[in-house]
């Protein structure tokens, strides 16, 4: 299945459109583990799937949009 991943760090396997091919039963934490280098330290960041906050154990479905929350400065 394919999920869309929006992360403030690089995720292994992400295609140019931001989609990731994953097996059925993939949990949020499995995606987080695909992050590279220093970004692994940010695995405590909140995660939202389809606009709702979920836990790292949340099981993803085909077509889900996973967003790892990260602040910026602005206004």
């Amino acid at each position: 299945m394919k999920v869309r991943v929006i992360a403030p760090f690089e995720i292994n396997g992400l295609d140019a459109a931001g989609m990731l091919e994953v097996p059925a039963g993939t949990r949020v934490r499995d995606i987080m583990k695909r992050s590279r280098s220093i970004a692994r330290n940010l695995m405590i960041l909140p995660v939202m799937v389809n606009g709702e906050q979920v836990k790292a154990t949340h099981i993803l479905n085909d077509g889900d949009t996973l967003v790892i929350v990260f602040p910026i400065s602005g206004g």
Partner: protein
Amino acid sequence: MKGYTGKVLFVDLTQRSWHTETIPDEIYEDYLSGVGLGAHILFQRIPRGADPLGPHNMIAFISGLLTGTSALFAGRWMVVGKSPLTGGWGDANCGGNFGPAIKQCGYDGIFITGIADEPVYLFADGKTVEIRSAAHLWGKDATETEAALIAGSGNTLRARVACIGMAGEKLSLISGICNDRGRMAARSGLGAVMGSKKLKAILLTGSQPMVSADLPEIKRLSRECNVLVPKGDFKIPPWLVAIAGWFMGASPRAIRLDGLSSLPIFRKWGTSSGMQVGILTGDTPVRNWSGDRSDYPWQKLDALTLNRRTIKRYHCYACPLGCGGVMIAPSGDGEVHRPEYESISGLGPMLLNADLESIFTLNELFNRSGMDSISASNTLAFAINCYEAHLISDQDTHGLQLTWGNTAAILQLARQMIAREGFGAVLADGVKLAAQRIGKGADRLAIHAGGQELSMHDPKYDSGYGIHYIADPTPGRHSIGSNMTYETMRLWTRISWVPEIPASYPGIRRHSADAEKGLHAAGAAMAKMIIDGAGLCNFGLMMGVDRFPMFEYLNAATGWHKTPDEYMEIGRRVQTLRQLFNLREGVDPAGVKLPGLVYGDPPARRGPHKGKHVDIYKMRSYTWQALGWDGESGHPLDATVDQLGLAAERAATG
């Protein structure tokens, strides 16, 4: 119908007359509505050399093309006019609920010239237009004015108001125009233009429907887009925000920013959520731009503390996000708007003011008085800096001891600025004029670009802000663009000629002064002209144009079949016309400079920007070239002007 009404209202306050005109479809195809329509009409109707505070200047209130079409994030309204602050093109925009009210009266915009012989307000309901006495409102603040007009409108459900407070009445060149109890179209000093016309307010109570070419398609696009908008509440410890700030500041590699990652935090805490990130990364200026995070107790500005008085979320018209907040004011004013990032930065770190309650109070003071908190806080910081440098004395300040973080003195001086009294009279028009009035070399402490004070973003952190501070026809503004907005808008997914930003890249590349940087900045500026023509919010565009259907919305509303590249050409046309307006009015684009400490000349000796120098003028040159303008002078090239169909406007600059 095509999203727009095709009709605008002209009002002459001197003659107390009004009429409507039909605008040809071709004008909308060339300029959209909003800022583009405003630039087209004002260029034609404001005579060259007009006094910004005289009868011949025209001020216009214009809705966005998408406002009222069911498009998301499409509630912003524009104010345009010749700026008394910069002497050139002026525009500002605002959320709230005034934008749709213009269209509900049957107009895309309301254009006003002349000067009334007494304080007045303009009333329109779609059937009639009246110029009414505002004698009973003159002297009231913006919130009181709005409440009084709505209460007396006979239609409290539909009544919408845009008005000035005391700052605009006193012709402060850093005054703005308010709606919805203190939300402000703040920049360019257009509140003073309204004040000069003795126009206290506009009251609208129309109820005309707004019709699009393809409403079902707009609704479908909105449903699809809305899936990505964060919903409900979510939990995030505030200390995590600070850690993220450290990470972003310390990492040698930059990660391409994605607005979808940040919108949940905006929904929860608003733009105030970015305070600690801003200070820790060095984005937020400190101590009149000369300090850094070690000068200020940034720990006090965590998102939870900043939101301790917040009681509910605030949504502008058509906004699914709701990044605004309503809080209980410490001043006893009841429910007020939570301050935004810009205001907190200016009233906190810029002044070394760590008293949070006073930041709330000052913010409300400026909102009610209609004074731009960005310009006002820069001006307060300038004054303190002058006092510290012994350029002004206790005698000059009438006994006010203007030391850093002296909350009581800051509050008193802010009130004096609004009332144009005491030492506040010296400061009431912003830093450039204040420095001239003080003399003694005070201009070296006056931080501005082309007369307008800078927003709260340091180009040494994000050089994109610095480019637009000096490259745009309305200098000093943060909302035109930045590296951050370029990355989050993801223009490369829809536009053929703009470069893609890699998912991660060496942080040093943020400051490379090359042709690619010019394309980024030009692309951001052109997209901004589309955004301000459509009446969209920058935060909606933070989702990226591959997820937020700006171009598809415009086609569905109008029935056009334009490509994203063609819309960008509209953006280029509007941007070029704004520049031609400045040239006609004698503004020298290349003469717009930044003080050295803003871009690291000489480089800072400590803090997050230690040793950093940003080649800001080279970046500006590349940006102008990418727009089709001369890289040195900022004059649009003949070929560009001809291609955009602006030959007549160019001829008017000669």
